[in-house]
């Protein structure tokens, strides 16, 4: 409900207006991104999680909800050890997914800036 006055922006995700461009861009490189069933194995096994709260599951979820900044923050501690790829029951190449995301992250802002 929007009443025209509030102190903080609504935390609700409006799926009508969510910006999925980064998600779609990543999915074009890593189609397996779409088959994540959010089991949490990757997050549980993550070597970086104790230091940064890194979670591939959350990164994917954030992208699906259009929350790019939150996704990026979590990636900053990934050590590419590959454990998440080892445990993923759907066989997603999470390690390359992270690399691809790090690579395309920010390119959109740059392109829009131009």
């Amino acid at each position, binding site marked *: 409900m929007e009443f025209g006055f509030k102190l903080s922006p609504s935390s609700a995700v409006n799926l009508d207006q969510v910006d999925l461009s980064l998600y779609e861009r990543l999915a074009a490189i890593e189609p397996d991104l779409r088959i994540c069933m959010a089991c949490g194995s990757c997050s549980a*096994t993550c070597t970086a999680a104790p230091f940064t709260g890194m979670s591939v599951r959350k990164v994917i979820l954030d992208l699906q909800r259009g929350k790019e900044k939150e996704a990026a923050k979590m*990636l900053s501690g*990934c*050590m*590419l050890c590959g454990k998440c790829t080892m445990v*993923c029951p759907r*066989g997603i190449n999470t390690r390359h997914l992270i690399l691809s995301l*790090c690579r395309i*992250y920010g390119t959109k802002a740059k392109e829009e800036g131009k």
Partner: protein
Amino acid sequence: MIDRVASGFHPFVLPFLFGMIFVLGYCLYGIVKILLQLSHEDRRRFLLSLINPVTAWKNIKDIFLNCLLHVKLWKRNPVLGYMHSSIAFGWFMLIVLGHIEVMLFVPHRMRQVWYPIFFNYFVAEGPGPATVQGALLFTLMDFFLLVVLSGIALAMIKRVRSRIFGMRRTTRPSFLDRVGLYSLWAIFPLRLLAEGFTAHISGGGFLITPLNWVFRQFLGDQLHMLPTWWAYSIALCIFMCVLPFTRYMHIPAEMMLIPMRNAGLKIKHARRGFTRAMVWSCPNCGVCIDACPMSVKKINLKDTTVYLNRNIRRGNEERIEQISDKCLLCGKCREVCQIGLDGPSIRIAQRAMRSYGLNQDYTSFRPAPAPAGHKLLYFAGCMTQLTPRISKAVGSVLDKAGLDWEIMDKDGGLCCGRPLMTAGRFVQAKQLIRQNSELIRASGCDTLLLSCPICYKIFKERYKLEGVRVVHTAEFFEELIQTGALHVEKGDIRYVFHDPCELGRGSGIYEQPRRILGRAGYLVESEPNRAESICCGGSLGSLTLGFAQREDMTRNALKHLTEGGPDAIATACPLCLATFSRYADRAVQDIAEILDRVSSKG
């Protein structure tokens, strides 16, 4: 032997002269280009190595043995070795002997560079009796021409039936490669014809004199002489003109590569400098295609090292990226390569060239301190947390040996940094190296034990841990058995050992794990093994190979491992263990696990 043509010149030498000037010019351009692309420090190092007598002698020796005699190839495949050395060394000897002939008989023609190549056209047999020198030279010339021709004949057979030569797959030559190939094939038969038609004037050895006699039986006149000399010269010209743009560039390039390698240069860039010399040196033989573990699937054939080189030469950026990211970095192509081309390092350099929108930073990480007060620290590593039988067995063996030890990353720790290295993320890897080094130093241990070869390789090569011995379980446990710290009861299980890439090719450890297995039971070998062992397919080296794409590689490796009918497959890497366990039809065990089962207090 006397001059027959007063001017010592004939227009048919022009094509040859043109080709020679072109190819020498291009090589000069290549050398200057490579030198300029080297870093200042590398250039200095390289140039200094050229005047250092030790390396200079090594350079000459290596060039002679590898470029001309192809010693490495002989060891691998004698027929291919003969084919290559017959053409290379035979041709080299023809050129050398040609010069000797000019020097001996017409020394005033030394400045006319075409003389040694077309010697027989420009001379006639002298009026006096034949000299011993002349006869010997003619015999030698004919002998080496025959040697080269036999090599060419083999090359033609190989083109049609490469399987006879033990090669399952070879590269498809490009158009220019074909031009180069056919002109190379043409050169020597044309020389044989030209000299054959001329032998009644110039004289000749056991090959061309009878040939001349045959020719003259039914081709009485001398009309055939000039056209064949022209054809010979044109074939030479075509070959030399296309050479820089074909696989034959390896002939001059390898003479550059060998001194650069002997100078100790390392690959630092995916295109420039040392890499350029390597890429040019690739003869496109395709040995790496059969060696590559990915080649079990046809779709991966064009992702092998030979195609990486080809695409680097063509500047196909998209394919270079794809090929670089797909590779498992198992290092087998480097192992089998005749020129020692370092495909994995070129790929890592390529990965390192990328820019990322998001760069990791671990400097704010505060890992738990490593336990202090123990002489021996065991770093299990990330992967071993998924293979608890290894860590449990390592702990049990260390307890039996009565050692004062502790596990360093019990509640998880930092990654060793090797996976980042393979992804080309050097800056990030160095941060982890620094952090882990501090933890280890602060613990006061004197030995760091690793059961994971991925960790082992980087700890050994990149960490600077003064006073701390970095050791893999394979080495350490073998010592424990040798020194009697462990008592081993031999069982009757037959093991085959799979050499993990990072432990074998990566770190040169082959014998220790085999000795452990020999004590624990019976060791059976499988082919290929040791330095040519087949990657399990699980390697972290590949960035883009998905889970499903790796299955065939794993099954292929397993097929070879189990050919000798072992009861169990032994390995010494948690990643190989996990990968093989998925598809193996028999037990897959780590050497620590095996040793734990058969050992007791010493």
